[in-house]
């Protein structure tokens, strides 16, 4: 189903759209305030962008350096070329530990690889411990936002969900009560987990350690209580040196939620005594994206979600309308690289307003890449006949001044004289909520000619 169809569905409940839009706009404004209070913010973005460009140009070397340093610290390092291999590696580690219960902190990569259903089908309980992620997990839905996974749910929705799954009493969506109950529920899962899985925000090549940013401390809690830690990362998560965290940690939380820094920036550099630590490094299409010159910079992404919060389309269509692990503007430039046919409507789910590129902490030219994907899609995917013929015809007519004059006159004549039912009908998407322009007696050409004649 196309983005437009799903977005139209989401728009049937206008009150909910307004609420969703306002909630995310609030985050966007918080981001502005917090970012603009940092002296040299735009320079910091430039720096972040350049470090990431350097990483992508030297990825092979940094990855090998990272692996060597991680191994020196006693970490097991695994390489996975795709989602299947990643899932199998994780499953093998779990089998070795005879693990049946897993706690997982936020990881978009494991979402991308559909790790949860893979493990669940093998009898393993996987509990997402980030509160928002736990909410969508209970609802059996994918996250609708990468930082605020349950932003499409109201507190009343969560109340009902918890009554059903956690046996809570109705509280009319009392957040304090609901969070307290979630805490009790998750505490039990943490205490009984065999293995903890985390994502990775930054993998530091010169130390071999990884950094995970959370607001709830759930990554630490999981790792410290379980006997083994598996950290899963995409190959692009590398940064060259530990000191570069000074750039990225400042950019990440401000861009994401307007906080100066996430509550927890957890550094995992080696396993605890008597425990195991594994890192799974995953490609899953990233190398291919790296090979596409026009779209390479999409791999700069540090997953802050700022482009979603600022996107006027995302705010009014909800994350699920994108039907991809990473929704919003950044998802719309990453997804066509994964499956051009399935995601071919996403680069068109934009007015190319450019706000996404302006907020991006690592300066990805998102709106320009959306424009470029459109050109690729029209060339490589079958296009709807009507759209295709209108635009191809326009290409010819508008390149011939004579034809254009005739077409202009005809269109204006039709708009002015055709009966209303011919103009405002189901085929006219413009006219559903908007009037068409009123046609004046003459066009500018006619007026200009007359004026010239009358001198």
């Amino acid at each position, binding site marked *: 189903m196309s983005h437009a169809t799903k977005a139209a569905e989401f728009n049937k409940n206008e009150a909910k759209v307004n609420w969703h839009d306002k909630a995310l706009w609030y985050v966007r404004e918080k981001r502005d305030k917090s970012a603009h209070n940092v002296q040299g913010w735009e320079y910091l973005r430039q720096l972040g962008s350049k470090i990431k460009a350097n990483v992508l140009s030297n990825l092979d070397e940094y990855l090998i350096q990272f692996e060597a340093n991680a191994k020196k610290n006693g970490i097991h390092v695994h390489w996975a070329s795709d989602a299947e291999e990643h899932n199998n590696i994780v499953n093998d580690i779990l089998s070795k530990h005879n693990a049946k219960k897993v706690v997982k902190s936020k990881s978009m990569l494991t979402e991308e690889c559909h790790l949860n259903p893979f493990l669940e089908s093998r009898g393993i309980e996987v509990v997402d411990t980030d509160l928002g992620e736990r909410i969508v997990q209970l609802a059996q839905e994918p996250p609708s936002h990468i930082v605020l996974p349950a932003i499409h749910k109201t507190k009343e929705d969560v109340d009902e969900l918890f009554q059903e799954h956690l046996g809570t009493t109705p509280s009319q969506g009392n957040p304090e009560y609901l969070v307290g109950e979630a805490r009790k529920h998750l505490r039990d899962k943490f205490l009984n987990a065999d293995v903890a899985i985390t994502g990775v925000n930054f993998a530091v090549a010169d130390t071999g350690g990884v950094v995970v940013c959370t607001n709830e401390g759930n990554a630490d809690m999981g790792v410290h209580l379980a006997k083994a830690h598996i950290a899963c990362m995409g190959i692009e998560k590398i940064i060259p040196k530990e000191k570069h965290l000074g750039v990225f940690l400042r950019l990440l939380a401000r861009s994401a939620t307007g906080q100066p820094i996430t509550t927890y920036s957890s550094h995992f550099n080696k396993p605890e005594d008597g425990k195991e630590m594994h890192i799974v490094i995953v490609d899953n299409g990233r190398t291919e994206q790296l090979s596409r010159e026009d779209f390479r910079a999409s791999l700069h992404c540090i997953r802050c979600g700022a482009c979603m919060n600022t996107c006027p389309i995302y705010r009014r269509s909800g994350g699920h309308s994108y039907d991809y692990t990473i929704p919003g503007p950044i998802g719309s430039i990453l997804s066509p690289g994964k499956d051009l046919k399935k995601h071919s409507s996403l680069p068109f789910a934009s007015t190319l307003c450019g706000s996404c590129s302006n907020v991006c902490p690592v300066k990805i030219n998102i709106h320009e890449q959306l424009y470029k994907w459109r050109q690729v899609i029209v060339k490589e995917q079958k296009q709807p006949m009507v759209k295709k013929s209108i635009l191809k015809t326009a290409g010819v007519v508008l390149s011939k001044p004579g034809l254009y004059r005739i077409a202009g006159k005809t269109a204006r004549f039709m708009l002015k004289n055709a009966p209303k039912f011919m103009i405002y009908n189901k085929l006219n998407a413009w006219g*559903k909520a908007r009037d068409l322009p009123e046609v004046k007696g003459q066009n500018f050409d006619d007026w200009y000619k007359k004026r010239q004649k009358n001198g």
Partner: protein
Amino acid sequence: MQKKKIKVGLFIPCYINQLYPQVGIATLELLEKLDVDVDYPQRQTCCGQPLGNSGYEEDSKGICNLFVENFKEYDFIVGPSGSCIYHIKHHFDILEQTPEVKRVRNNAFELCEFIVKILGKTDLGASFPHKVGLHKSCHGLRGLKLGSCSEVQGEHYSTEEDLLNQVRGLELMSLNRKDECCGFGGTFAVFEEAISSKMGKDRVQDHLSSDVEVLTGADHSCLMHLEGIINRNKQPIKVMHIAEILNSSL
């Protein structure tokens, strides 16, 4: 000896030519008042933007070449539409970069920017005693950098505000969301009808809540979309292109 006047090729985008002649007329009259030598090349059609934005850039080369052919002789090319000018400057990279193509891309200016930056004028002697709301079109704002953007750190500036602030009697109203997209987006308006209309509706509401009587902007495609919503819902706001206001002497 008399100073040679700047020679301007007037670019009237296709939809303005056909549907909003009054905007073209105001633009021409305004430029003439400003003492430049204005010419309207009559074989002009369009900049190719509707095709490019829809993914049909390849099919627009004929249009782009015709544009260059029509406008290559002028000192400046001036049009009352930020998004069309943006398209010429940024997307004519699909043509072979001959000296003519480069010249046309460099010399194309949105009307307000031309008046403020090139002619160095802000007070055009206009008078318009109304409460006005300014819609900053995204291609003008974020593309051509006609003003500062709310997302970007830095000093506030705005080419359109510089001009409107000099108009006698005009009261520029402050909006809740200063530079959010209106949702037009070319074919987006039709293929993503639900979101496009909702975005437009929300923009109009912001102007209504800010007591705006006249909604204006430097890109009439946004205004066409917003006016369509206003007229459908019979809302008490008049829509005018900024050239019409700057050309007023009410």
